[in-house]
């Protein structure tokens, strides 16, 4: 895969030859990074495509010279803002890896509480710990060039995207919903067996990962283009699911945060 030609083909300013790649994590479960080494079968091919210069979870050497930075996790403390800004200043392409980085992920579930002091007290009592009131996505602080959705990210998709970036091809994320993939996979619809599912409004690309295992979608990849959240609420209601269940799914990963806020307010007003 190594290209030694002098072709000046570039993508977002990066020469096509084996770019230097770095991985970083902010507040996260480190699962999205782990997905990269969890792909034993194609890991070696992937490694021939890029040169990894920083990956703290896997290697001791750390270099400050890279073109593509993958950043996992959401921003939850002041020092993370600083780290992120520094990474942004070095990287030509900044990739938000996973739903924590793209939307805040499960971490943003703490944002739903009115009183951030209560959140800290619940866990640490009177012990003082530093933490921002809100868990936020990377984009709240720096411009992001590419977003790879998912909690966790789907490794095949990451590799496809990285290959495209390296080869200078444009990256097109699916606009259609999970439902399309689920139907193509000929799954029994979960609503028919009495389970809730956000597949109709969630962006595809995971190959209907959860419904394939008879688990309804929780919307980890955020909204599909033209997602009709109002209609989704109707479908849930018609199938006998409470607004609370709808809210649980909608607010879980942060991709539907605006819609979740509206629904939460309307539930509490009742």
């Amino acid at each position, binding site marked *: 895969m190594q290209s030694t030609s002098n072709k000046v083909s570039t993508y977002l300013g990066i020469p096509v030859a084996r770019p230097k790649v770095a991985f970083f994590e902010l507040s996260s*479960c480190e699962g999205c990074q782990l997905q990269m080494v969890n792909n034993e079968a194609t890991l070696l091919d992937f490694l021939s495509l890029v040169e990894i210069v920083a990956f703290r979870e896997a290697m001791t050497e750390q270099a400050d010279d890279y073109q593509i930075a993958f950043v996992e996790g959401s921003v939850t403390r002041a020092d993370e803002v600083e780290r992120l800004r520094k990474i942004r200043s070095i990287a030509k392409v900044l990739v938000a890896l996973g739903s924590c980085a793209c939307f805040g992920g499960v971490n943003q579930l703490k944002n739903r509480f009115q009183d951030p002091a209560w959140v800290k007290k619940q866990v640490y009592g009177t012990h003082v710990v530093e933490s921002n009131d809100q868990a936020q996505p990377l984009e709240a602080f720096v411009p992001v060039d590419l977003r790879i959705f998912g909690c966790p990210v789907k490794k095949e998709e990451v590799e496809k995207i990285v290959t495209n970036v390296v080869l200078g091809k444009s990256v097109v994320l699916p606009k259609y919903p999970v439902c399309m993939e689920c139907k193509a996979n000929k799954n029994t619809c979960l609503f028919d067996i009495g389970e809730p599912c956000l597949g109709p409004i969630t962006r595809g690309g995971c190959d209907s990962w959860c419904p394939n295992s008879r688990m309804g979608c929780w919307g980890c990849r955020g909204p599909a283009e033209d997602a009709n959240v109002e209609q989704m609420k109707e479908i849930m209601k018609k199938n006998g699911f409470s607004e609370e269940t709808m809210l649980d799914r909608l607010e879980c990963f942060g991709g539907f945060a605006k819609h979740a806020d509206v629904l939460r307010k309307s539930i509490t007003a009742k």
Partner: protein
Amino acid sequence: MKTTRTIDIHHITRVEGHGNIKIVIRDGKLEEARWEVVETPRFFEAMLVGKKWENAPWISGRICGICSIGHTLASIRAIENAFGIVPTEQTRKLRLLLKHMETLQSHILHLYFLAVPDFLNVGSVFPLIGSHPDVVARAAQMKQLANDVCDCIGGRRMHPTRTVVGGFTMVPEKKELVQFRTRLKDATDDLLRTVELFRTFAVPDFTRETEFVSLKGDKSYPFIGGDLASTDGVTRREHEYRLMTNEYTVEQSTSKWSRLSRASFAVGALARVNNNFDFLHPAAKEIAASFGLKPMNHNPYMNNIAQLVECVHVARESITLIDELTGSTWQEPRQPVSPKSGIGVGAVEVPRGILYHSYEFDNEGRITHCDCVIPTSQNHANIQHDLKKLAEQYASQGKQDRDIELLAQMLVRSYDPCISCSVH
């Protein structure tokens, strides 16, 4: 001439999460040795308050990407204990097989990708791809096998999709299990070669008398639920876990610390082996013996060997589990759930040690209080005490900074800490 030497490791590499080591030696005497945990908290225990029971395994599994299966199973067990659900034999076996494969993939990841580079004097596994291709290929193959079984039973190797309160959303195809049986048999050779590889490494000679805490088996090597025991003679029931963990906060760490009979205790593979040696599979026991590992072992670096021994144990036991599962007819995968008020605790041995989830529910099954105690947080105080003794000992022996730095990092890595998990 007065000399002050400082070893300052910011964000130690090849561990999960963020921790720092600080050692100050003045005139050959240790002045300070500190293990600092600087990870950002995510507040999972607050996040879950107000949520209905079915959210808990799905959300709390995200505490950790490496042991998400263990977290999911501990969460499910806590809920089932609160609601009075007893898993069926089939569910019990499927969960144990899933758990075993998480243990195998995590131990292999730790041993080969995080620990081996220290012994082979390289900074990561990546240069080994060129210099030791067979070693890397073997690690990848075993990891892939374990991950493939997790995909098959749990629906996904990370943040599983089929594991639910009451059982599973669906069961695997028997013919898939049969294929895995063959691959597990083949893995026996890979594991033996792993044993041979580790035999060529010199495990640092360091001991500090330690209390070890784990589940206590009554008939088998325990992984999911049961009584709790320490090697200092403390025993407790699962729901009394707080009397084992005694969490407290310290200034140098965003993770809580634990203590029991002494200033600190250890959990993990070495603790399990020390507490349950007799229940190991004979093949695993033999390997343990060949490394001189038997209770009580007080060398923290031997946790690597204990993990290796457990790899053999879980691989062997998984073959038996597959035989039992394929030899019986599939029953309904999932039991109905009726929530009720109360408290439930789930204790599970995850790769890095004993993990507890505890939830309190209202009548409708909404969480009113949540507590998760993570293996690594139970180990932090012990790492601190080991680090101090280690630095003291090596400083007085006149070891070079470079050597102390390496041995200190290897010590921390031996615990296979999962720091972001410990802070959660």
